[in-house]
């Protein structure tokens, strides 16, 4: 039915896509499908051959207090890291974009955490947060007498990790803002200069609105990252104390590779995939709007 011309026109393009597609299917689509099936099965140390159990895995998640704790942690982790690092990133970028002395130094200082492995960062910050002779402890001795057990206290541990992540991420987001700023026409600023507008006003009325698309983009990247970033937990807290610092991906790791509860790990993975798809959907929706008012 399909003519020879159809094949001739399309086959070259398809062949070009083929190598990528093979790996995409093998490591994105096929595994997702497989996970859906596995999430409907009991497959753990008690059941060597998987048993079909319908939605039981999903039902049991609802009663799993650690699951809800982990989800809440993910939520606070995002709330704690994203606005702060975005605000900092914006401030850094506006500064680093100006033709000033020391701008290279500032850019370097903010960006370098992003070329260090997360696992190395975790080691460094572990020593910063260690009570009694960690760097922070020593510094705090001059401020007040108390010594805080940053990573051993469930009320503090999340804050401690959030500060570390902000330290790492802000410089990364700065880059996106720098890129965004390059697209802002200098004429606008010249006009504002002539009108004698104050810097804060210029920022509020010109820079910030024009960078809105960048901000949205950065928010999505930050949100996705807040699901991916778990490397530090392996070194610093193992998700503790009492799961106070555990995140969804780390919980998946635990279920799969420490407890061999494959059914549960699959169910959690599906939850994660759905969340990520929702985020992407929101992005689509927002990005479309942005196109309209540009």
């Amino acid at each position: 039915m399909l003519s020879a011309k159809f094949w001739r026109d399309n086959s070259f393009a398809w062949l070009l896509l083929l190598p990528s597609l093979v790996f995409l299917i093998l490591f994105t689509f096929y595994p997702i499908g497989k996970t859906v099936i596995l999430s409907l099965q009991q497959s753990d140390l008690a059941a060597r051959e998987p048993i079909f159990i319908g939605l039981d895995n999903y039902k049991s998640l609802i009663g799993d207090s650690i699951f809800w704790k982990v989800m809440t942690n993910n939520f606070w982790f995002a709330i704690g890291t994203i606005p702060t690092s975005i605000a900092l990133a914006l401030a850094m970028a506006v500064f680093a974009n100006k033709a000033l002395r020391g701008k290279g130094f500032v850019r370097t200082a903010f960006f370098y955490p992003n070329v260090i492995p997360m696992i190395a960062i975790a080691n460094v910050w572990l020593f910063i947060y260690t009570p009694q002779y960690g760097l922070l402890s020593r510094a705090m001795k001059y401020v007040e007498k108390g010594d805080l057990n940053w990573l051993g206290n469930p009320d503090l541990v999340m804050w401690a990790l959030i500060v570390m992540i902000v330290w790492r991420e802000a410089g990364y987001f700065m880059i996106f803002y720098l890129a965004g700023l390059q697209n802002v026409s200098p004429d606008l600023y010249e006009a504002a200069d002539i009108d004698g507008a104050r810097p804060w006003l210029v920022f509020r009325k010109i820079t910030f609105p024009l960078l809105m698309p960048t901000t949205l983009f950065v928010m999505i990247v930050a949100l996705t990252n807040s699901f991916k970033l778990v490397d530090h937990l392996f070194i610093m807290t193992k998700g503790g104390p009492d799961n106070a610092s555990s995140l969804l991906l780390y919980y998946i790791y635990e279920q799969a590779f420490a407890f061999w509860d494959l059914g549960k790990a699959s169910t959690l993975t599906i939850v994660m995939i759905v969340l990520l798809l929702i985020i992407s959907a929101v992005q689509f929706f927002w990005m479309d709007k942005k196109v309209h008012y540009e």
Partner: protein
Amino acid sequence: MKACIKLIGVTLIAASFIAGCSNAGQNNTNKLPASQTNTEGNAEEKIELTFYYPVQVGGPLTATIEGMAAEFTKQNPNITVKSVYTGNYSDTAVKTQAAVQGGTPPDIAVLLANELYTLLDMDAITPLDSFIDKDPDDTYVNDFFPAFMANAQTDGKTYSIPFQRSTVLLYYNKDAFREAGLDPNKPPTTWDELAEMSVKLTKQGQWGIEIPATAPTPATWLFQTFALQNGKNVMTSDGKQAIYDTPENVEALQFWLDLSTKYKSMPKGVIDWATTPSDFLQGKTAMMYHTSGNLTNVKANSTFDFGVSFLPKKKQYGSPTGGGNLYIFKGIPEKNKEAAWKFIKFLTESERAAQWSIDTGYVAVRKSAYETENMKAYTTDFPEALVAKDQLQYADSELATHNVGKTVKALSDAIQRVVTGNSDPASALKQAQEEADKALEPFNK
């Protein structure tokens, strides 16, 4: 059209390159089957054993293990041991289980003694009885301390051989005792004395005591000390029941909590397992609960006079055993199993067990190791090395159940919830009991 054909060609080449890569990779990992085919037919053919081991007590000991492997090959030229350093105990457990699941188990591994039921559930390990029965040395197994064999046997079968084992000890700083007006030769022997003395030892810049509660195993392991002292162990010996929620255990956990809240002689929150010895060595804490595996380190690095003693008792003395046993895996050639057994025998020879104990501070696993000249000389100079061994008569096995990852996590979460002040002992242990029961339910059908 020509372009299309060319492209197909290139894609094929690329694909075969990738396939080639993966084959190369596989050949590297699957040395076992290769050696298997070689060994069939010719007894003197080379056997290569893959040996996973953790070194919990610090870097340089990897060299000691490699040295032992080389020595073994010298005695058995046809067997080489490829020793694979796999991190700490929990990393090693994850790696070994992953290898088993992936169908490429090691031949032999040192794993925590409490992994027994998990490994059985995975059908991963070989029972050793046939080797023990065949062995000309019929006193071999009986020479190991019974407390260490407790985690190695179930259902009348022996599944592992103790290798680097420990108990929990009380380490105390004698100089700090003197400064606080306490007798440096009388460490606390009861919970009450522990509380009382720790208060006296607490001052600006120095805590009285530190008991680490890092998740998962340090927390549960140290909790077991209190549980054993106040009654009985936290699980049944068949590994099918967890016994967390008892009045004795509630009392035990309350005491642990009291040290930081009521007596204020211990830092609040979760104390880190790895920094506790540093705190002790730096004089930031006058006493600590830690593994006997740390003895050699403390001895080498302390700048003050220190002592070790039994853990203080409540109703009785008590400590769980800890540390690793040697397991032989399933799904490997019979020749490898026999070679692995030889290697186990080699590693646990009395002389070697004694030397390993001296090098690390772990308890020598065999009674006869303490009869060797080497050990006698060492313990005369350093009698502290005998404390852990003597405590063995009060020791019981480490928390080991089916689905041990989950049951341990349930308990360690509860302990952390309590020591961080987020729950009272009774309700925390109740919740832990429920979670553990759920994890064990399938094994009680």
